[in-house]
């Protein structure tokens, strides 16, 4: 490989990870401004975070929203992945584009649309349940992609073998296909969970007076750099990267 190409590659990885590394680094810095200069090491910001009730209730709300979205998005995404991978039909490419559209359309615009409809036409008050609606739409495409990845590696000879041995289609699905696809479904659930925990756009207009973790972070960040946000960010980034690596492991064949 040419040296210049290697240097460029390394520079891009540095570009991708430097901000995250700095955030983690500053979370241990004594300086209350949350940035340079480094004035010593401390765990104070982590301790303060534990006493922050607004943060804790926001985290709790995030968990409720994510854990409600996970089963719905994973179920809808799994079935859709089966349809897209296993069946051949006209306009399949068009259908997949539509299915994955919510991944591309900015969440804040969808949130605005949901808000306008709820407030002006339906008169429904905003709550964490209206936010769940948005989260399900936004996260389902991720579930589709995760399960589809696993389904591609599936050897359908196994299904035929079970059928030849006299199993009816339901038994084949329940005892052969589903257990083999399960790692993909679990990976989908994990990915939906992390994406939901992180979703800002669609939550912004649909959550009303409640607050999820990203809403809490937003309220803090609008006031500038906060050392406690660095600490929270460290937790959040390490936690979600761990979950995503696990999901990735499950998707490997």
């Amino acid at each position, binding site marked *: 490989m040419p040296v210049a190409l290697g240097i460029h590659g390394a520079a891009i990885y540095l570009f*991708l990870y430097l901000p995250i590394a700095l955030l983690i680094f500053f979370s241990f810095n004594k300086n209350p401004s949350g940035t340079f200069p480094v004035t010593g090491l401390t765990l104070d910001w982590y301790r303060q975070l534990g006493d922050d009730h607004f943060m804790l209730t926001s985290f709790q709300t995030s968990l409720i929203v994510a854990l409600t979205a996970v089963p719905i998005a994973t179920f809808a995404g799994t079935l859709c992945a089966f349809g897209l991978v296993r069946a051949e039909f006209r306009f399949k490419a068009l259908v997949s584009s539509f299915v994955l559209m919510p991944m591309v359309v900015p969440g804040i615009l969808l949130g605005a649309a949901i808000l306008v409809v709820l407030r002006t036409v339906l008169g429904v008050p905003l709550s964490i349940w209206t936010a769940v609606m948005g989260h399900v739409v936004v996260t389902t495409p991720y579930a589709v992609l995760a399960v589809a990845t696993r389904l591609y590696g599936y050897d359908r000879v196994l299904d035929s073998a079970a059928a030849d041995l006299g199993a009816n289609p339901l038994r084949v699905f329940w005892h052969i296909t589903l257990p083999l696809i399960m790692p993909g479904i679990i990976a989908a659930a994990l990915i939906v969970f992390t994406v939901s925990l992180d979703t800002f756009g669609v939550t912004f207009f649909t959550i009303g007076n409640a607050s999820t973790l990203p809403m809490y972070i937003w309220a803090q960040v609008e006031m500038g750099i906060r050392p406690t946000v660095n600490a929270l960010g460290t937790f959040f980034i390490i936690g979600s990267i761990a979950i995503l690596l696990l999901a990735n492991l499950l998707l490997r064949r």
Partner: protein
Amino acid sequence: MVPLFLAFLPITLVDFFFFVLPMLIMSIVSVMVIREFHITPRLTAENYLFFLKNPLYVKVLAKSLLMALATTVISIVLSFPFAAFLTRLPPAIQRTMLVLVILPFWTSYLLRVYAWMTILGERGLINRGLMDLGIIESPIRVLLYNDFSVVLVAVYLYIPYSALALYTNLERLDRSLIRAAMDLGARPIQVFVHVVLPLMLPGIFASFIFVFIPMLGEYVTPTIIGGAHGLMIVNIIVSQIQALRFGIGSAMVFVLVALIMLMVMALRKAARLEKIYGF
């Protein structure tokens, strides 16, 4: 095997009620007379005219389109050699290195934007470094709160998409065509312009879908990195909706979403999305 329509039923219900229906109703609301929460069923174009008659809004829309274009072009230019770098990695570590590219963009979106304040801010990494090196006396403020810093951070946010799109494309590129062009005496630059570039068009179109569109809908980055001078179109939409001007807000959301959908539909085939998605 489960009948086909049953496989698509749950996702259709979800997308219909929580995506298609809100967008449809909102587009109807945008052509109605509306005062705060009350709709008068009378057709009007005033919501659209309000936007068009305000030169500042039209300017911000134009600027947002330009910023999204700049972000996309820079991402593609940087991703080209990066994709080449990825394809030349030893197969044993290639997958891991790919996962490392994708990993950041599935997590901590807000925090990754926020982290740039510790780099570009008055006491941030760059100012600190330049001062320690004696290049500048006091912190420079031009690093934050302008259009350039917004584009820089947006490139950071969205470059994984263009890198992956171009990588997928490059992986499938038939190398023998390049060798053939070389054998016929083409110079490297000619090979790139006449052979590689046309074959990389799907990856380039896909980058437009995955970089241009989310950047056009950016709210977080212009707000905290751009400040008053780096506003984008969604900042105006948010301020309209927060002022309960739902009619004007709906009109602007409709214009933006329509633009985005048209772009996806126009580029979908050329971008070979099914290659990237896998179906």
